[in-house]
């Protein structure tokens, strides 16, 4: 009961005109930032962080700056789906899974339906997560504490296991794609030892180049390995290369000699029909809402594995898995519900443990420190006048976001009415600008173009590329957590699969990591066995 009255007070403050206005502005800013490839919620929140001091002073409401930034965060999560669906380029790693079915739906002339599904699923995901947040914040923060290094690694393994199902039937090609992504993720400085890896230059060559040209001079952009591969390969560079350049070339090639124009019509009735049509996507929405939230509250995981796993689980449990990737509304709803749900979930470890679960929450965390709040286990007790209006604003922002998003759908669809001969060059330009804007470095732009051509080749050879893109996102964390765990166990892998492995000399049992690992192993091995059996059975009659 205490919670209900606190929440009511919080909601009341959140609907005060100034907070409501901040939520609306924040959502609109976020929607556009999220919809532009290359810019995501991190950029939006970071750029507008200084602006919150003005808000702080103008409103003298401790929650107002945070309400504004949280609204941008949500808006961007809604917006990420827009470029995934209309352009086929995921605006952020959280929206990669949305392209799998969102893009095919758009190509089939159902872009409006895909956008409506994404918006409504996002709304449900965000609201379900906020309900959990309201009711169980203290309990859930203790769950997050139970997830140490081996547990997070096991969870990453589970995320990778769901990849296997993503690439269609050709498992060896999917595995190749995953390992290629993991390989790219190792480029740059190793987190644990601090040594540079795969920078394509040994110390002797490095010295020679440095002596000839001098470090970091403009004259040697192609030889200066320090500013090249030691920076590592960023997710967006690969994602924009694969989707912005590679896919585009492929589409141009596939649609040669016929000028295609995606059919789109929009009317109030079609939007209503789309909302009614949500009943076809309720399962994906529910899976995404629940799984996304759970993964979101675990520090270091964030919304990307959440949206991905939700897509995988939704596909695995579907009666018709073949329809995924061909424009199944469930395939749009699951990742979209999940990334919104996970974003709310990620607020939890940030506020109660002081640990950011995603890059965006890291900026929000910094914001809270600057406004004089101390995120940590005592925040809920010490600063209710901040916490409850913020939770109230989660509800309000979600409602605002879904309404704003639905209102803007006709505008986004106008993009699709452009003939492809105009759209394709626009996408190329956006890809280059987006990459440069994200990292401020020409090296990344060249690398992006290179990845684009590589991706085109692999696309012709029918290799699935999404697993590689996602492996780059998760590979770094997975490796770090695996190596920290192995340091803990003196190199003994039993720490991942054996619940009786003694971690701290006190003879405790640890069940979370082993159970997760075993589920992941089954999910990885099962499709491989099925594939092998089919191959043998299918192969033998042909030989006979």
């Amino acid at each position: 009961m205490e919670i209900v009255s606190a929440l009511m007070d919080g909601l009341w403050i959140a609907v005060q005109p100034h907070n409501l206005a901040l939520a609306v502005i924040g959502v609109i800013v976020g929607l556009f930032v999220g919809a532009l490839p290359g810019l995501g919620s991190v950029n939006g929140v970071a750029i507008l962080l200084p602006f919150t001091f003005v808000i702080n002073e103008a409103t003298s409401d401790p929650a107002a700056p945070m309400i504004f930034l949280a609204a941008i965060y949500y808006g961007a999560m809604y917006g990420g789906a827009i470029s995934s669906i209309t352009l086929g380029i995921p605006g952020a790693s959280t929206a990669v899974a949305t392209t799998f079915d969102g893009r095919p739906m758009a190509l089939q002339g159902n872009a409006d339906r895909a956008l409506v599904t994404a918006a409504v699923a996002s709304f449900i995901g965000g609201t379900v997560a906020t309900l959990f947040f309201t009711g169980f914040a203290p309990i859930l923060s203790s769950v997050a504490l139970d997830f140490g290094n081996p547990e997070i690694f096991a969870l990453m393994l589970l995320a990778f296991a769901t990849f296997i199902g993503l690439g269609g039937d050709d498992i060896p090609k999917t595995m190749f794609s995953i390992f290629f992504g993991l390989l790219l993720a190792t480029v740059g400085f190793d987190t644990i030892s601090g040594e540079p890896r795969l920078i394509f230059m040994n110390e002797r060559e490095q010295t020679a180049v440095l002596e000839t040209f001098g470090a970091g001079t403009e004259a040697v952009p192609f030889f200066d390995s320090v500013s090249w591969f030691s920076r590592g390969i960023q997710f967006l560079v690969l994602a924009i290369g694969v989707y912005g350049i590679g896919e585009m070339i492929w589409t141009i090639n596939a649609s040669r000699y016929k000028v295609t124009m995606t059919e789109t019509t929009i009317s109030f009735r079609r939007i209503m029909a789309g909302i009614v049509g949500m009943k076809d996507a309720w399962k994906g929405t529910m899976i995404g809402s629940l799984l996304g939230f759970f993964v979101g509250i675990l520090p270091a995981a964030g919304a990307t594995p959440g949206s991905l796993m939700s897509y995988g689980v939704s596909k695995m449990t579907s009666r018709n898995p073949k329809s995924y990737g061909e424009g199944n509304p469930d395939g749009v709803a699951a990742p979209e519900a999940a990334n919104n749900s996970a974003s709310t979930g990620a607020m939890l470890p940030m506020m109660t443990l002081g640990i950011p679960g995603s890059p965006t929450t890291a900026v929000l965390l910094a914001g809270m420190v600057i406004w004089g709040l101390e995120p940590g286990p005592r925040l809920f007790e010490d600063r209710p006048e901040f916490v409850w209006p913020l939770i109230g604003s989660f509800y309000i922002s979600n409602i605002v976001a879904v309404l704003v998003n639905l209102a803007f759908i006709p505008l986004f669809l106008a993009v699709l009415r452009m003939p492809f001969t105009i759209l394709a060059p626009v996408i190329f330009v956006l890809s280059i600008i987006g990459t440069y804007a994200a990292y401020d470095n020409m090296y990344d732009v060249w690398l992006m173009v290179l990845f684009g051509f590589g991706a085109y080749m692999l696309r012709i050879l029918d290799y699935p590329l999404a697993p590689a893109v996602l492996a780059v996102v998760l590979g770094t964390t997975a490796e770090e957590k695996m190596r920290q765990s192995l340091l803990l166990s003196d190199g003994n892998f039993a720490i991942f699969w054996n619940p009786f492995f003694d971690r701290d000399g006190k003879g405790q049992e640890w069940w979370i990591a082993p159970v997760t690992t075993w589920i992941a192993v089954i999910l990885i091995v099962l499709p491989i066995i099925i594939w092998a059996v089919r191959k043998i059975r299918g192969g033998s009659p042909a030989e006979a």
Partner: protein
Amino acid sequence: MRLLKTLTLGAAALGMALTATAASAFEPSKPIDFVIMAGKGGGADKMARLMQSIVEQNDLAGQPLVPTNKSGGSGAEALTYMNGVNDPDHSIMVTLNSFYTTPLRQPGLKVDNMAFAPVARMAEDTFVLWVHKDEGITTLDEFIAEVKKRGNKWVMGGTGKNSEDNIITDHLNEAYGLDIKYIPYKGGGAVAKDLAGKQIQSSVNNPSEALGFYESGDVVPIVAFTNERLPMFPDTPTHNEVSDGDDFAYFMQRSVVGAPGMSDEAQAYYTALFTKVYESDAWQKYKNDKSLMGDLMSGEELSEYWGVQIENHEKILKASGAIK
């Protein structure tokens, strides 16, 4: 009316001419790249964002500071990045002690500390030994006894390999014949959370990193590695009070440096800027609240301080076998 306009224009032109004659003074002409040598959410990160907010709030700089975290390889990523920037006059970095230790360990990086511009040392951070309250340990002697009993199953979490936290752990192992296992993390925030979750058994977090879980009662301070007791933890002894003759105090610099090749004018500009930040109420309050020590230092004085610190760290790393 026309006369007034002419006069205004004239005054404006005169003003511009005056600015032009004073061209020797540096003013940033584009957003300033503000590199943070550590991951998000840790002590260095929070401090850097606070500095940025003080600059923004009081409108101290003509251009915004744009923070970027480069946490890879215990600062190696940040150092090589700074070494190779195209525009050293618009690139500054928040550093900690990995500023000394990483180049010592990895001569291949070709990083020369002394080439960086000594802008300002904003504070010295302190270290405290923390354990979870469920261990039931409250003194250094109890700590040593329990760790010995646990053998190599006692785990210390810390930020980065061969970093400040690692140096302190090595010292404890050496001085008391312990076999503590050290696990590097990306940031102090993750270490604090894993200690509260009993995933690790101890940490040497800075007070600012462990404060939340100290206030909630999850973690307990054992000793402070300082010369005097910290005002915030008056009941926690310093290591030297209870160590039985083993003298060990350790601090971490919180400094702002300019990229190698920064012009003297730009360095003077940033020193003036961060002196204003240092003197602000917000910074002084933060320094007090988070048990930070050390006064402002810049220019020659800071360079000399670096020289002494590099020498000390070389000794420490050699003693622990991290470098030859």
